[in-house]
């Protein structure tokens, strides 16, 4: 999940009787599964939460290009390079779809990027981990995109129309990402040298827990989650999604012939789910706070690209303005 701990600005959930007439009508539409569209009335907190969540999601897609870009120039074959480039390009595109969706709420992309660049806006904790071998490209596709997809499939039903439509488009395009990642790992495990197999297990060891953290804190720790669920911005809780992800991932792990770095991971026939160990929440909150292994580098690189591009963006704008002025003068003269 690319949006974690999105602040709703709400301390406790309002009872219906405490709501204004507008709010009650709004909640009635939400209850009816009718989508909210940009010009419709919406509570301020709903609008702000959406902007936070959608932009955090967009920022994650954009920052997420970096850990994969780290291996793009070193991809071992032309086929793998084409696949990885296409995937990174999709992520950039998905960032753009999501910024578009956020902009329908009356906030400019420049403002959103500014919040990212100044550290006010967050992006998913997962992208603050380094990619240290080629198998990480597989692990990122399989585990990270896999976790994101679990969440995004559900988000296709989110209550805000433009966000829902962006998610539908994104899900359709991302279906190859996870398969691509898994296939990288499977090829290395089935046809690889011992060194390649070690790479795969090493990548899984490093990305397993951070992938589980992508779903955010436990449900009982989160008012925000409850409010977002009431508004149907979120459709399932953090813990539900995490469990879905684990249940679908463990059999895939077994097919690979690899293990998870969790001694408590085991099938529970009574619940019909996998039990798993406790997540190291101190690590999670540390990364969220900015102390992950790559927080500083990721942000610095993004800011640098933006600043280095200023003169290019300005030039394009200046050229367009001149052209329009030129066209206007020609019109007057004729």
């Amino acid at each position, binding site marked *: 999940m690319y949006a974690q701990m999105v602040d709703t600005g709400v301390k406790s959930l309002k009872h219906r009787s405490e709501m204004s007439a507008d709010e009650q009508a709004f909640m009635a539409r939400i209850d009816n599964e009718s989508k909210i*569209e940009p*010009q*419709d*009335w919406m509570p301020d907190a709903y609008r702000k939460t959406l902007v936070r969540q959608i932009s955090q999601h967009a920022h994650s897609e954009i920052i997420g290009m970096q850990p994969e870009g780290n291996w793009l120039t070193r991809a071992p074959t032309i086929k793998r390079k084409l696949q990885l480039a296409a995937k990174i*390009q*999709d992520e950039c*595109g998905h960032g*753009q*779809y999501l910024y*578009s*969706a956020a*902009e329908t709420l009356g906030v*400019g*992309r*420049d403002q959103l*990027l*500014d919040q990212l660049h100044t550290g006010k806006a967050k992006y998913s904790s997962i992208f603050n981990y380094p990619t240290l071998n080629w198998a990480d490209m597989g692990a990122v596709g399989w585990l990270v995109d896999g976790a994101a997809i679990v969440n995004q499939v559900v988000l296709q039903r989110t209550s805000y129309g433009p966000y829902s*439509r*962006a998610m539908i*488009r994104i899900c359709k*395009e991302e279906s190859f990402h996870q398969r691509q990642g898994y296939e990288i790992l499977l090829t290395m495990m089935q046809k690889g040298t011992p060194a390649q197999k070690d790479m795969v297990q090493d990548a899984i060891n490093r990305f397993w827990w951070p992938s589980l953290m992508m779903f955010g804190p436990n449900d009982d720790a989160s008012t925000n989650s409850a409010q977002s669920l009431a508004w149907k911005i979120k459709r399932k809780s953090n813990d539900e999604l995490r469990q879905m992800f684990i249940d679908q991932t463990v059999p895939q792990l077994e097919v690979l012939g690899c293990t998870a770095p969790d001694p408590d991971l085991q099938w529970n026939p009574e619940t019909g789910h996998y039990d798993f160990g406790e997540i190291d929440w101190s690590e999670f909150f540390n990364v969220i706070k900015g102390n992950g292994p790559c927080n500083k580098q990721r942000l610095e690189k993004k800011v640098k690209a933006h600043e280095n591009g*200023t003169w290019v*963006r*300005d030039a*394009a*704008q200046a*050229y*367009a303005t001149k*052209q*329009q002025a030129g066209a206007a003068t020609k019109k007057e003269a004729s």
Partner: protein
Amino acid sequence: MSTADWPLFEVFIRSRHGLSHKHVGSVHAVDATSALENARELYTRRNEGTSIWVVPSNAISASAPEQKDALFSSPVEKIYRHPSFYKLPAEVDKM
């Protein structure tokens, strides 16, 4: 040095011949030429299009949500505009 982003354009794509252009989202661009290029890069990466329109977002006029009832509720009553309103004998009901 400017900080403002490039203007926004709405993008409409004709996915196949015979279909009408459909709104797919928006792009930032300095002018119509580059908006078409950017839309091509962003929205047709998988063969989705045979034609693209771009329109400056601020050129679109939209109906107001509070007028929704005034504008759209009346046709709901006019069921006689729909073929199913007219009951015909089974022998000629394919009409």
